[in-house]
C-alpha cells in the first residue's frame, strides 16, 4: 500500500523504539489513525531499544519469570538513592505506579519474557527479561502495531517540525529520496537522545568526544530534541551529562551494544597511557563500579585505559567479545600495549607490595585491600603475579544523554513560557531526564519509555478526538 501523505493523521509519532511503539499501539487501540516515522533504516529501527535486555517493574511476585516481589516503595527508594533526589517526585511515582501494568500490557502486545540465566541472576527480582532481547521485543511490538493498522515507515527521518505557539501541525520527513509533509492532529516525540551526535558531544567534551564509542545506533542524533528546544519547549536535565561506561576499546565506533561490555576491572588494576593507576578499582560493587569507569577513562589522556589482570582472575568474569592481550611478563605486556615498560613494571610492583593479606570474595566487599598507596584499592586487591598476564583496552562507551524536554503527568510537553503544549507529547529517552536527573538504575530506561509512551498514546488519542 502506498503511504498516504495527503491525509491528516490523528497521531504522528517521531522515532521507532520502545517509547514510540508503546504510544502508537495505545493510540491505535483507542481507534486513532497513527503514523510512526522512524529515521533509521529497517534493520536499525528502534535505536537503542534494539540493544536492551530488560525492563524494571514493580510487581507482586506472581510474574512467572521473576523471582520478586518488588514493592513500589522499594523501587522508589532505589530511584531516590541512585538519583540523589534529582527526580521529579510526581513523575517518579507515576512511573513506578504504572510500571506494574507493563508485563501484562507487553504480553498482550505479543512480547514474551524469560527468567534470567547466567550472569544476570541478581536482577531476577527487579527486572523482566525480554525473550530474545530488545530486538525480539521490538519485532513483536512492530507486528502488533502493523496488525492494528499503524503506518510504520523506516528510513524516514524527521527533518523539520511546523510548530506554532507550542502547537504542532506537521512534520517534514525525507522519504525515498524526497521530502514529504506529514500532517497530524497530535505529535508524540519519541526520538531518543543525542548520544550519536559527536559534534554535539564535542560542545561539552571538546576533542575528547572523538574518542568516545557510541553503544547504540548512529541514528540517535537528537535532531527532534533540538527542533523542539528551538521551538520553545522547556529543557530538562544537565546538557553536559551522559551515561557512560567502560567498554572494550576495540568495539566499533557505533552500535557495539551489550557484547562489548567488560567486567574485568575490579579483578586487577586499571592504568592510563602513562601506565599509572588513576582510581580505586575496588571502591564499590556492581553495578555502580561498571558505570563509573566510562567517565573516569574519558578524563584520561587519549580517553583510553587498560585493565590488567593475571591468570588467577582471567576466568572470573563474563567472557569478553575480543580476546585479552596476553604476555608472560609485565614488560612484554607493556610492549604489546605500547606502554612504557619500566613505568608499568613499577606500577605493578608498587601495587603488589601494597597488597595486604585477606580472604578474596568478589561477591561481597571483601577485606583484600592495599595499604600505603596514594590511590588505594579498597577491596578485591590481589597481587598481580601469576603469569600469563592479560590486558583489555577500554574506552568510554556512551549509552545515552540526559538532556531532554520537560513534560507533565500527561506526558505533555511544557513550554518555556510555563504553559503546556496544546498537542505535543514526549516519551522515552527524550524526556527521561524528568525522572532520572542523574545516574542510572538498570532497566529503568525501558520502564520510562513504556510508561510515558502509553500515557502519551492515551492522551494524544484523547486530544485528537477533541
Amino acid at each position, binding site marked *: 500500500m502506498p503511504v498516504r501523505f495527503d491525509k491528516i493523521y490523528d497521531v504522528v509519532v517521531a522515532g521507532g523504539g520502545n517509547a514510540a511503539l508503546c504510544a502508537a499501539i495505545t493510540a491505535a487501540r483507542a481507534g486513532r489513525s497513527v503514523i510512526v516515522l522512524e529515521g533509521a533504516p529497517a534493520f536499525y529501527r528502534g535505536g537503542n531499544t534494539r540493544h536492551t535486555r530488560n525492563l524494571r517493574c514493580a510487581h507482586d511476585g506472581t510474574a512467572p519469570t521473576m523471582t520478586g516481589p518488588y514493592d513500589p516503595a522499594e523501587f522508589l527508594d532505589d530511584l531516590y538513592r541512585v538519583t540523589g533526589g534529582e527526580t521529579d517526585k510526581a513523575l517518579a511515582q507515576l512511573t513506578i505506579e504504572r510500571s506494574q501494568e507493563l508485563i501484562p500490557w507487553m504480553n498482550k502486545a505479543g512480547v514474551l519474557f524469560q527468567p534470567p540465566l547466567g550472569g544476570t541472576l541478581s536482577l531476577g527480582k527487579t527486572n523482566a527479561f525480554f525473550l530474545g532481547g530488545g530486538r525480539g521485543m521490538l519485532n513483536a511490538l512492530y*507486528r502488533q502495531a502493523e496488525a492494528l493498522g499503524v503506518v510504520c515507515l523506516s528510513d524516514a527521518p524527521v527533518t523539520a517540525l511546523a510548530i506554532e505557539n507550542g502547537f504542532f501541525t506537521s512534520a517534514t520527513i525525507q522519504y525515498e529520496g524526497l521530502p514529504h509533509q506529514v500532517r497530524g492532529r497530535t505529535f508524540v516525540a519519541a526520538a531518543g537522545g543525542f548520544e550519536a551526535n559527536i559534534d554535539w558531544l564535542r560542545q561539552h567534551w571538546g576533542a575528547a568526544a572523538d574518542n568516545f564509542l557510541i553503544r547504540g545506533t548512529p541514528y540517535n542524533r537528537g535532531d527532534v530534541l533540538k527542533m523542539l528546544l528551538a521551538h520553545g519547549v522547556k529543557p530538562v536535565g544537565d546538557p553536559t551529562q551522559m551515561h557512560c561506561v567502560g567498554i572494550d576499546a576495540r568495539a566499533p565506533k557505533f552500535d557495539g551494544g551489550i557484547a562489548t561490555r567488560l567486567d574485568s576491572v575490579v579483578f586487577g588494576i586499571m592504568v592510563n597511557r602513562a601506565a599509572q593507576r588513576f582510581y580505586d578499582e575496588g571502591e564499590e560493587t556492581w553495578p555502580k563500579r561498571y558505570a563509573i569507569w566510562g567517565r573516569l577513562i574519558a578524563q584520561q589522556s587519549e580517553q583510553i585505559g587498560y585493565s590488567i589482570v593475571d591468570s588467577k582472575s582471567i576466568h572470573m568474569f563474563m567472557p569478553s567479545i575480543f580476546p585479552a592481550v596476553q604476555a608472560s611478563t609485565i614488560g612484554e605486556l607493556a610492549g604489546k600495549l605500547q606502554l612504557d615498560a619500566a613505568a608499568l613494571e613499577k606500577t605493578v610492583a608498587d601495587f603488589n607490595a601494597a597488597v595486604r593479606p585477606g580472604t578474596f570474595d568478589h561477591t561481597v566487599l571483601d577485606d583484600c585491600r592495599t595499604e600505603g598507596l596514594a590511590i588505594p584499592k579498597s577491596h578485591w586487591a590481589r597481587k598481580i603475579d601469576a603469569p600469563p598476564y592479560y590486558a583489555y583496552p577500554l574506552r568510554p562507551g556512551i549509552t545515552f544523554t540526559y538532556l531532554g524536554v520537560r513534560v507533565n503527568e500527561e506526558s505533555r510537553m511544557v513550554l518555556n513560557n510555563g504553559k503546556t503544549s496544546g498537542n505535543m507529547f514526549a516519551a522515552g529517552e527524550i524526556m527521561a531526564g524528568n525522572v532520572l536527573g542523574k545516574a542510572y538504575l538498570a532497566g529503568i530506561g525501558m520502564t520510562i519509555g513504556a510508561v510515558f509512551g502509553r500515557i502519551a498514546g492515551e492522551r494524544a488519542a484523547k486530544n485528537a478526538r477533541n
Partner: protein
Amino acid sequence: MPATDLPRSAALVEADRLMTICNACRYCEGLCAVFPAMEMRRTFADGDLNYLANLCHQCGACYSDCQYSRPHEFNVNVPAALATLRNDSYAQYAWPRALAPAFARNGLFIALTAAASVAAFIVGFVAWRDPAVLFARHAGDFYKVMPHNAMVILFGAVFVFAIAALTLSLRAYWRDINGEGDGRAVVEATGDAARLTYLGGGGGGCTSENERPSAQRRVFHHFTFYGFLLCFAATSVATIYHYGFGWHAPYALTSLPVLLGIAGGLGLLIGPAGLFVLAQRRDAILTDAPRRGMDTAFLAMLFLVSLTGFALMALRDTGAMGLLLALHLGVVLALFLSLPYGKFVHGLYRYLALVKYAREKRTAAFVD
C-alpha cells in the same frame, strides 16, 4: 575424531567466532538449548562446536532477534553457521569415510541410488522370473513376483548394514563431543525430541518462514516423524504376524499392519509436502543454502515411499502391480541404503545432543 594438525574448517572458525560474540551478549539465552549450553563454556573446541551445531533446531529465532545480524559489521547469523557446521559434521562422522562425499551432493546421490535401485528390481524380476510376471495379475500377492524370503534377505541385509553404518558414525560423533548421558537424560531428551521443544523459539514459535513466528514447521515435522514411526511399526507388526503367527500377507484392509501403514503413509504424504512448501518460503539466509538438496532429497524419498505404497495398495489386483512393486521396493531400498548418508542422520545426532544437554544441564554451571 583424533585431534589433527589440519587447520580448522571455515565452518568451525565461523561457529567459534559467533559463539564468542554470543557468549559475551547472551540475549538469546531463553530461545533454545544452544545458548544455555554455550554459557556453560568459555572457549569452544571443535567437539563443543559440533555438539552445539547438532543441538540447534534451526528455528531461526536468534537471527530475527539479533541486533548484530547483517548489515551490522559483526554479521552474526547463528542458524546458517550452525547449519553449515552440522552438515559438515555429518560428513566428518560418516562411516565408511569413502562415502562422506555423499553429503556434499546429496540430492544427486539419493536420486542415483533410487534410480539404480528401482531399475535393479525391474531387471531382477525379469531375470529371475520372466518378463510376463511383471505385467500379470497376481490378486495382490507380491510374493508371486518376488519370493518372501528373497525380500527378507535383501532388506534384512541392507537394514543391518544401515544400522551398522549409523552406529559407527554415531560412535565417532559421541566421542568427538565428549558425550555423556544417563537414564534421566535419555528420558528428558526423548520428551524433547518427541515434542520438538526447541523448534519453538522459546515460545514465540519457529521464525523460519518469515519474521512471524508460527508452529507450522513443528506440526508438519510431527506428521513426518510420527508417520515414519507408524510405517516402521506397520512393518514390525507384519514381521511378527509372519514369523510369530504364520499369518501371511496380503492382509485385510482392517488388519493392524495395514491400518498402521495407512496412518503412517498419510503422515509421510502430508508431512513432507508441508515441509517442502515451508522450505520454499524460508529465507535462504537462514540455511546452508548450497546443501539444501539434502533436505529436499529426504523429503522426496519419504513422500515417494508413501505414494508408491498407496499406489501399490490401490492397484495390487491389476496388471500394474509388478511394476509398482518394483518401484515401491526400489524406493524403500534406496531409502534404507541412504539412511546413513543423508538427512535422516539429523534425528539421531540431534537426539544424542539433547541427551548430552539434558545431562550437563544438571551437572554443569554457567560461566559468569
